């Protein structure tokens, strides 16, 4: 195979660095590393590795990683670890040809592992970027520090939940439950590190720790906000079919945010450990701390890149390689001169600052496109705002950087996401690219400002800025290519397979941005944060200006449409770039470019003026860049205007520091760049206009831009656009908007106190969004959440079943505790206390049970007077009133509706419209008189005297009356099975009546000596049973069928012979319904979703309740932390199941609307009383004897009942066969057609 050949050829460089020493020194030179690798380890490892490789599909071994193979490595961990941490950087520099994707690692990166292949490669997601791919586990060690454990576990759950495809499940997101694990995890971490409060000495003493802590909490609050938004999405009924996209985007965002939180946690812990190790935790110099903070963990930027000596030459190579590559792939043949220029410009640039250019050693370039493209490597944010007054924070450059980075990443993220879609119009594509580019430029502006602030660091930053610049450029070029090609083919749709170039470009953009930001942050930490006022002016909004643009736009649109097809591919204009000298702050208004490429557009002449008026603050080359980079046609410049105001273009960033540091020639570089960008983008613009996508996306762009950056939305002025704008757009802008908001000072504070609120959330067990277990405090907390209405099923279950797991007194105490401890978190105290009050109120009003609950009043009353009244006077008074009432009243004060778990028989008219007339009763005059006669002491009528339907009705009414009075508490804890003193009176009455009815059936049949008469009675009962079924009275049906099927009746062969086949068939049908086979499968299916009125068979509920009780333990174990046994918590799932069954039963507690015939009821009751005897056993025996008397055994020696208890061996074989014979004859009798009755 080709693979094998390749292998042998490359085996030497395929060697995995399996034994790298955990040594972080990077002093050895590249050459020595290489040779050492070849000699020392290559020899003994090569064979094995190459060997294993040939068998393995998943990960391609890194192709001779230029990173240092000289060091030794820890042995592989035999245990599966969910999280790994890289202790050595891993940067595969080969381009990946096939579909395998390797993840580059930086020292300190944390990886969520999905699986580990036997060859040592792991499929993992890099938390820093959200990218997924293969990574060498030998570069990593397990990461599972005790204090992070809860957070890591929570992240796993979070990932599983959000990635499980439940994203659209309102149940899950309807409440914020799924967030609590993360929050609890963070809390646990802080608790473990003694930094729960801001005031704790360890936090106070270590600046780095304090800042990390702050950042951690602010990220957490940002995640909480996103989750809230998701809740809002899901709470809304879906409006369009694109809605799920919205949700999915948010979910992705949340995952990234959760990753970020964990990274923060890791970083925090690192600093904390350092702090502990150093044993002199206080009085650190800030700079030192900052470095420490930076050093250990994630940043994707190589820390090595700052000591440029290491890499020496590759800078130039890298740049030229990159440029040649881009010329090969990125540019079409139409612009050879442009390529030329470009290459030159790179050369010039790289030679100009070769030593520093190492940072641009384009990792991103060589990194494969990741599968999960949403690499929003937001992990590099370091909020430095702690010490700065809140009001100013938003203007801080670090905040600007964060928010612009976030924005950039959101746009890119959604762009990349959309690339995976089936197809998209060129317009959409272009629109996304533009958004991304604009956002990227805005970020570069911030970076630029930082460079300008500090020259030294500016130099360090320059390269990564250049890299980012380059990436953005490339993205635009690829976009143009794609669109061009699709335009040539004449369709407006870009197919996914065309997107690979774009994907690579976009991904590298993300990467470059991440590096750039990381470096910038490093610089910020060194030089300190500063305010960024002037730019924020620019970033601000000018609503009138926007309006003007809108007007402008409409005119231009027409123009654009008219010129759609006219545009030629413009040659690259080297003369376009503005003079570098004119670059800095005072901006001369040179608007040179657009007339050249697109002279045909008539309106172009107006736009410069427009711009002049709007953008006087901008450096001129900025403007030029903008014009060039974005869609170049003059028609678009109005949108440019708006974007310029909000999103500053990248070029100033480049030029600022270049100007100030005189070593190299900035003008040359920048101008070269300018021309590059101009040419490439201009041709992009042509493609755009030729594809006929006109103003739609432009205004869409403006729309979302303005919503990102300003409160003054232009939506009102462009109402018709929404339908063209992809649904994801508004959400993204919202997202980034709120993202940047969340960093505002007061929200951080709010977030902090919120995160640190005392909570028992970690003592709660969930499954599928439902609570399955928890300690009492955790459950009580769940009952009184501040941020969401507690789930009604949870609440009703709790009210119904709490006495099974807690005494009323303890519950009252737990509620009071909740009321007390929430005071530590003032921002939620209000709602929580109100909910505590509501729980008490609901309990007293509707769920109070005198017998058990009265002792809780000793807790509730003092609480109401002493605590509740102070906070909520009205509430305190109300609780007191209720507490007094419950002692004097019997039964619930406020009856609940059927659907809830309380008393049920009150809302009768729910299902049956009251105006429906009652069906008339089937009582003839003679029947009435027969009953009258009976009442007067006359002869006893038989059931044959009455209509089967009417009898069925009266039986139903009778049973339903009892059924409706069953209280839920009767069904708890197997109360009804108690031998004595059972409180389940109604359940008992139900089963008694059922048994009595069975006895009545047997009695009425057996009272006749004449088989024919018995058959008539049987037939009548079959009819009654049939009517019961028609009335959905399954309970009576069951009782009658049981009796007809009892051995006492079934054995009456002569009688059954006289029952018509029709009736027997009917009986068979009825029998099959109540058949206990397969756990009453038929009956259960019928009752499922049955509409009341209906009287279900109570027995199945009782059995179910018994088995839920017996089959599920009272407690559950929380997953243990570390090796320890988990905490034992209440198995709430058991109670939920109980409540569900009871709820099912209650669903049917709605009386029939039937006429009660009092006389008939009276007669029925009399019959039932008659058949009642002291002992059931007696009854059964008695009937059986009677049955034997009526139709004696057919065998010769008539055997007495086995009840007599003779020796079991008295029966010989023959007799036994006779018995079987009887069985068969009965079957025959049943199936044989008989003519009778």
């Amino acid at each position, binding site marked *: 195979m080709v693979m094998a050949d390749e292998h042998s050829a490359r085996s030497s460089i395929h060697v995995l660095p399996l034994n790298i020493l955990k040594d972080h020194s990077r002093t050895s030179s590249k050459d020595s590393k290489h040779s050492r690798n070849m000699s020392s380890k290559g020899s003994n490892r090569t064979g094995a590795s190459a060997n294993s490789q040939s068998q393995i599909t998943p990960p391609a071994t890194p192709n001779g990683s230029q990173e240092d193979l000289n060091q030794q490595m820890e042995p592989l961990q035999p245990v599966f670890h969910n999280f790994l941490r890289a202790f050595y950087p891993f940067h595969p520099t080969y381009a990946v040809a096939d579909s395998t994707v390797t993840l580059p690692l930086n020292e300190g990166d944390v990886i969520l592992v999905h699986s580990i292949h036997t060859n040592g490669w792991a499929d993992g997601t890099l938390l820093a970027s959200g990218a997924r791919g293969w990574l060498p586990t030998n570069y990593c060690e397990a990461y599972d520090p005790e204090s992070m454990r809860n957070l890591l576990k929570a992240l796993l759950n979070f990932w599983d939940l959000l990635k499980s495809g439940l994203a659209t499940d309102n149940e899950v997101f309807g409440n914020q439950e799924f967030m609590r694990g993360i929050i609890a995890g963070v809390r646990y971490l802080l608790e473990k590190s003694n930094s729960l409060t801001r005031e704790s000495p360890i936090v106070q003493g270590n600046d780095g720790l304090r800042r990390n802590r702050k950042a951690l909490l602010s990220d957490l609050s940002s995640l909480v906000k996103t989750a809230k938004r998701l809740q809002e999405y899901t709470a809304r009924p879906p409006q369009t079919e694109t809605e799920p996209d919205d949700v999915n985007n948010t979910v992705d965002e949340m995952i990234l945010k959760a990753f970020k939180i964990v990274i923060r946690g890791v970083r925090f812990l690192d600093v904390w450990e350092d702090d502990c190790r150093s044993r002199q935790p206080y009085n650190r110099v800030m700079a030192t701390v900052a470095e420490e903070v930076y050093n250990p963990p994630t940043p994707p930027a190589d820390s090595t890149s700052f000591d440029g000596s290491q890499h020496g030459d590759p800078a130039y190579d890298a740049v030229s390689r990159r440029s040649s590559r881009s010329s090969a792939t990125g540019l079409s043949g139409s612009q050879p001169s442009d390529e030329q220029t470009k290459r030159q410009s790179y050369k010039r640039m790289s030679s100009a600052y070769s030593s520093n250019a190492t940072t641009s050693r384009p990792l991103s370039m060589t990194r494969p496109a990741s599968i999960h493209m949403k690499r929003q490597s937001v992990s590099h944010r370091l909020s430095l705002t702690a010490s700065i007054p809140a009001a100013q924070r938003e203007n801080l450059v670090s905040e600007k950087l964060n928010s612009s980075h976030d924005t950039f990443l959101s746009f890119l993220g959604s762009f990349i996401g959309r690339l995976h879609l089936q197809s998209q119009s060129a317009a959409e594509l272009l629109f996304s690219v533009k958004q991304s580019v604009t956002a990227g430029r805005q970020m570069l502006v911030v970076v630029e400002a930082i460079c300008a602030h500090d020259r030294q660091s500016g130099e360090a930053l320059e390269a990564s800025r250049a890299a980012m610049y380059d990436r953005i450029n490339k993205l635009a070029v690829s976009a143009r290519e794609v669109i061009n090609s699709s335009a040539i083919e004449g369709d407006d749709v870009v197919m996914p397979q065309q997107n690979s170039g774009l994907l690579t470009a976009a991904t590298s953009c993300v990467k470059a941005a991440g590096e750039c930001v990381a470096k910038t942050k490093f610089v910020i930490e060194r030089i300190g944060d500063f305010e960024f006022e002037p730019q924020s002016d620019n970033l601000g909004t000018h609503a009138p200006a926007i309006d003007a643009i809108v007007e402008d736009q409409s005119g231009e649109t027409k123009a654009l449409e008219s010129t759609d097809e006219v545009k030629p591919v413009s040659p690259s204009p080297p003369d376009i770039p503005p003079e570098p000298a004119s670059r800095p702050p005072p901006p001369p208004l040179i608007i040179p470019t657009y007339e050249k490429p697109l002279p045909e557009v008539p309106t172009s002449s107006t736009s410069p003026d427009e711009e002049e008026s709007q953008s006087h603050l901008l450096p001129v080359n900025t403007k030029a860049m903008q014009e060039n980079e974005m869609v170049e046609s003059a028609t678009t410049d109005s949108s440019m205007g708006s974007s310029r105001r909000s999103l500053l273009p990248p070029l100033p960033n480049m030029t600022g520091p270049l100007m100030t540091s005189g070593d190299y020639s900035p003008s040359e570089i920048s101008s070269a760049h300018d021309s590059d960008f101009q040419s490439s983008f201009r041709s992009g613009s042509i493609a755009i206009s030729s594809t006929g996508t006109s103003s739609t996306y432009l205004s869409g762009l403006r729309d979302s831009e303005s919503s990102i950056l300003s409160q003054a939305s232009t939506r009102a002025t462009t109402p018709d656009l929404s339908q063209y704008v992809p649904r994801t757009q508004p959400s993204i802008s919202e997202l980034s908007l709120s993202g940047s908001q969340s960093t505002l000072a007061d929200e951080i504070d709010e977030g902090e106190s919120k995160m640190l609120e005392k909570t028992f959330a970690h003592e709660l067990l969930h499954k599928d969004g439902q609570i399955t277990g928890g300690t009492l405090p955790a459950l009580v907390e769940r009952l009184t959440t501040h941020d969401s209405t507690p789930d009604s099923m949870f609440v009703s279950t709790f009210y119904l079943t709490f006495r099974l797991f807690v005494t009323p007194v303890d519950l009252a105490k737990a509620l009071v505790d909740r009321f007390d401890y929430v005071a530590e978190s003032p921002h939620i105290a209000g709602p929580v206390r109100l909910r505590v009050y509501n729980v008490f109120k609901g309990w007293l009003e509707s769920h109070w049970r005198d017998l058990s609950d009265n002792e809780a009043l000793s807790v509730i009353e003092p609480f109401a007077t002493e605590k509740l009244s102070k906070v909520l006077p009205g509430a305190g008074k109300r609780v007191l009133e209720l507490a007094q009432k419950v002692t004097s009243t019997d039964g619930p004060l406020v009856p609940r509706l059927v659907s809830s778990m309380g008393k049920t028989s009150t809302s009768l008219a729910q299902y049956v419209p009251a105006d429906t007339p009652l069906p008339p009763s089937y009582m003839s005059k003679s029947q009435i008189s027969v009953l009258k006669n009976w009442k007067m002491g006359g002869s006893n009528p038989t059931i044959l005297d009455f209509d089967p339907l009417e009898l069925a009705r009266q039986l139903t009414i009778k049973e339903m009356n009892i059924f409706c009075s069953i209280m839920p508490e009767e069904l708890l804890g197997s109360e009804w099975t108690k031998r004595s003193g059972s409180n389940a009176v109604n359940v008992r009455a139900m089963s008694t009546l059922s048994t009595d009815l069975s006895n009545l059936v047997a009695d009425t049949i057996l009272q006749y000596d004449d088989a024919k008469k018995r058959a008539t009675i049987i037939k009548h009962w079959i009819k009654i049973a049939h009517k019961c079924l028609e009335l959905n009275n399954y309970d009576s049906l069951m009782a009658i069928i049981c009796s007809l099927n009892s051995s006492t009746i079934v054995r009456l062969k002569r009688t059954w012979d006289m029952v018509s086949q029709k009736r027997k068939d009917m009986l068979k049908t009825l029998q099959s319904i109540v058949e206990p086979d397969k756990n009453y499968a038929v009956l259960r299916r019928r009752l499922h979703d049955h509409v009341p009125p209906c009287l279900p068979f109570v027995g199945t509920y009782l059995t179910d309740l018994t088995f839920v009780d017996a089959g599920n333990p009272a407690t559950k174990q929380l997953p243990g932390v570390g090796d320890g046994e988990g905490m034992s918590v209440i198995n709430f799932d058991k109670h939920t199941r109980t409540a569900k069954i009871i709820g099912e039963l209650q669903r049917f507690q709605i009386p029939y609307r039937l006429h009660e015939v009092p006389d008939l009821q009276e007669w029925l009751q009399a019959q039932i009383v008659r058949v009642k005897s002291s002992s059931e056993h007696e009854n059964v025996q008695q009937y059986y004897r009677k049955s034997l008397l009526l139709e004696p055994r057919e065998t010769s020696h008539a055997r007495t009942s086995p009840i007599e208890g003779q020796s079991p061996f008295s*029966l010989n074989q023959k007799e036994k066969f006779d018995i079987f014979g009887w069985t068969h004859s009965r079957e025959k009798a049943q199936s044989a057609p008989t003519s009778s009755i």
Partner: protein
Amino acid sequence: MIIAPMLTRIVGHRRDFNIVVLGAGGVGKSCLTAQFVQNIWIEAYDPTIEDSYRKQIDVDLSSLDTAGTEQFTAMRELYMKTGQGFLLVFSIISQSSLHELSELREQIIRIKDDENVPIVIVGNKSDLEEDRVISRSKAFSVSQSWGNAPYYETSARRRANVDEVFIDLCRQIIRKDNTTHAQREEDPYAQYRDPGRERHAHRKRKTHRRKREGGCMIL
């Protein structure tokens, strides 16, 4: 469990058997059944589904448990009819629960019209030794008088002897089933049946039981 593979050989193919669990309320029938059907508490036990009481141990075993509906006496017969084998469960800490079994047994025999219907007597709650009111010997003599039905003491809570009870009953049912078939001379399983092996199985069972019962089983 030792016997289980043998069952397969004897049976040759899978058969459906219904076991009915009977006993007074509160003797722990439901625990017994739930434990047996479930083996290990995996997540949670849901009794409302069709297969809640089914378990496959080489044969497909459905158990019908009357737990919760003891008071629906009229329904007993319905249950009993469907069963081929019966677990009569009492609690060693309740005198009356043993008394009630005799009623149930009579009813079973009447309904099945068969003195030799497969029955296993189970004294549950063996973990509550200190509260025991029914001695082993008493229980055993009762089981002897009832057609020599095997007697087991179980603890559903500790999951002691739970499987054994069901498997013993199952074995009885199969043996009876085979005998019936043989006597009807339409035994489709004859080719699978090896009398020697069956005897062997029987012997094995005895030793097995003796071990479990600590010698209180007289054979």
